């Protein structure tokens, strides 16, 4: 690598080497900022920060594609949201999805990481298996699972073979579809949790476990009192990432159920915002929904992060 070409010099950067005229120095500093920091910052500001400000602005108007004149309506959109059953239902849907998607992959992830925390070819291969869904598009995953959970799909074929007269409609029953959808996302995210917990397990000192074993602690108590507290940072990372991912869930809803069956039984907030914004074209109202969504995500992530990080410090 290019490392070989750098010959370290013992001479420290003395004041003599740094002394330049201040004007020139300021110009160099400005040039340095322009070449290194400005391009990335500029794109970010124009395509992420400015749109957030615009969203807040739009949310105070009645902007819509078919309406010729956009008017300022103040907080009316937010007032309407409080009575909008579609939106309120989407919040409930997202709450259920998030709860399942935060808890299940975390619990299964830590179990599988402990199971796979050994050297050997089997374990290496299995790690790859669990990680593979992370490299596959959620569109592809959604189509595969749509086939698996279809009324005449392999799951129900197996259930019929076992003698079930009327196997459940995993994706067609309005009471079940949301949970089937959550399971798909859990399957997809599990590999991420396993990898993070495996990395965390690498940081558990073997001596501590041995000391606990000598003191007579069984496997369960060793895990509870030594391993699990030391996995706190991994739990923080997984929980926050899962929470944010759960709020973004759109692809799976769009491909697998398109919000149904029935009315909006699986329509997540992310799905409803885009539906309102790009299908109904009521961009002002959709922006109000988007702003509420942003506030909820940001609030929940910060609170969760604070809470879990405080727990890390205690260890």
């Amino acid at each position, binding site marked *: 690598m290019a490392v070989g070409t750098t010959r370290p010099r013992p001479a420290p*950067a003395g004041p003599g080497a740094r002394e330049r005229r201040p004007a020139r120095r300021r110009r160099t500093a400005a040039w340095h900022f322009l070449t290194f920091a400005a391009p990335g910052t500029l794109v970010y500001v124009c395509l992420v920060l400015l749109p957030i400000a615009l969203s807040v602005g739009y949310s105070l108007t009645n902007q819509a594609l078919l309406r010729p004149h956009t008017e300022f309506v103040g907080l009316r959109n937010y007032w309407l949201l409080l009575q909008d059953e579609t939106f309120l239902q989407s919040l409930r849907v997202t709450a259920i999805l998030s709860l399942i998607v935060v808890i299940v992959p975390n619990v299964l992830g830590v179990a599988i990481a402990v199971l796979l925390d050994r050297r050997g070819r089997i374990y290496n291969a299995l790690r790859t298996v669990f990680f593979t869904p992370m490299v596959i598009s959620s569109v592809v995953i959604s189509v595969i699972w749509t086939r698996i959970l279809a009324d005449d799909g392999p799951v129900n074929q197996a259930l019929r073979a076992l003698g079930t007269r009327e196997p459940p409609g995993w994706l067609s029953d309005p009471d079940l579809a949301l949970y089937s959808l959550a399971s798909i996302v859990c399957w997809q995210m599990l590999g991420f949790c396993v990898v993070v917990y495996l990395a965390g397990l690498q940081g558990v000192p073997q001596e501590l476990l041995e000391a606990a074993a000598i003191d007579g602690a069984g496997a369960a108590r060793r895990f509870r009192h030594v391993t699990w507290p030391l996995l706190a940072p991994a739990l923080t990372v997984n929980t926050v990432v899962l929470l944010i991912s759960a709020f973004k869930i759109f692809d799976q809803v769009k491909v697998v159920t398109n919000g149904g069956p029935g009315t909006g039984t699986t329509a997540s907030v992310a799905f409803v915002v885009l539906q309102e914004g790009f299908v109904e074209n009521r961009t002002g109202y959709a922006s109000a929904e988007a702003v509420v969504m942003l506030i909820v995500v940001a609030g929940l992530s910060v609170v969760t992060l604070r809470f879990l990080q405080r727990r890390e410090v205690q260890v």
Partner: protein
Amino acid sequence: MNRPSLPWLRPLVALAAGALFAIPLYIALINVFKHSRQVSADTMAPPAPPTLDNLVRVLTGPDSLFWSSLRTSVLVTSLSIVVLTTLSALLGHYLARHGGWWPRLIMVLLLCGLMIPPQVILIPVTQVLKALGLMSTIQGLVLFDIGYYVPFGVFVFSGFMKGVPRELEEAAAIDGATRWQTFWRIVFPLLRPATASVLIFLGVWIWNDFLNPLIIYGPRDGTTIMTGVYKSLGQYAADFGGMFALMFLATLPILTFYLLLQKHFVKGLTGGATKG
């Protein structure tokens, strides 16, 4: 209780869990090589006899949907990740080496960007891109990808910079190198593990992205590979074999990319670099 009494139990349970977890992957793979009738009749059965008809049908389809989407996706992904890696390495380096309230503010704003769902900003983004004349273009999609993923790149690079000794840069400055030269000749090569992980993650995310191309690039003027898969759901509604073949072909390039780059997660390149 300390010595495991059943040494075969762990591998057995691990294998069982792995097998159960891998069923969808198995289904995705074997059905590429089965006739559509067999797919719907018995999804789990192995392909007997295996057939390449599905792959051939997708690759030689009259609308050449696969090839045109593939071209778009390769273009969008490679452009995005090259520009993103460059910009976020430069910005990450700048922020890691500068204190003061101004760089710190940029850092905080970027970290906030890590948790912003794209749905929150897509409506105004389409209007910004429309104003720039970039809606429904590859450039527009690439530009948004850059803005949206720059926080992740900066996060990885600036974190990694902490392990890169400052002395190297100071030595180069004394030798008369400009900051630009120092960065590209000395610092950037040392960031290789960070570069590899940024390339892998962003490559996978952007290739697999569905929402942004759906909204920004739009299905009317063409598709990326994943919006292409979505668009052909109707076309392949009765042709499960073709669908599985298309999905297999859409995943293969990024899987290969991932496996190739994974080897480059080389760590400890700076070890010994500053020893006399």
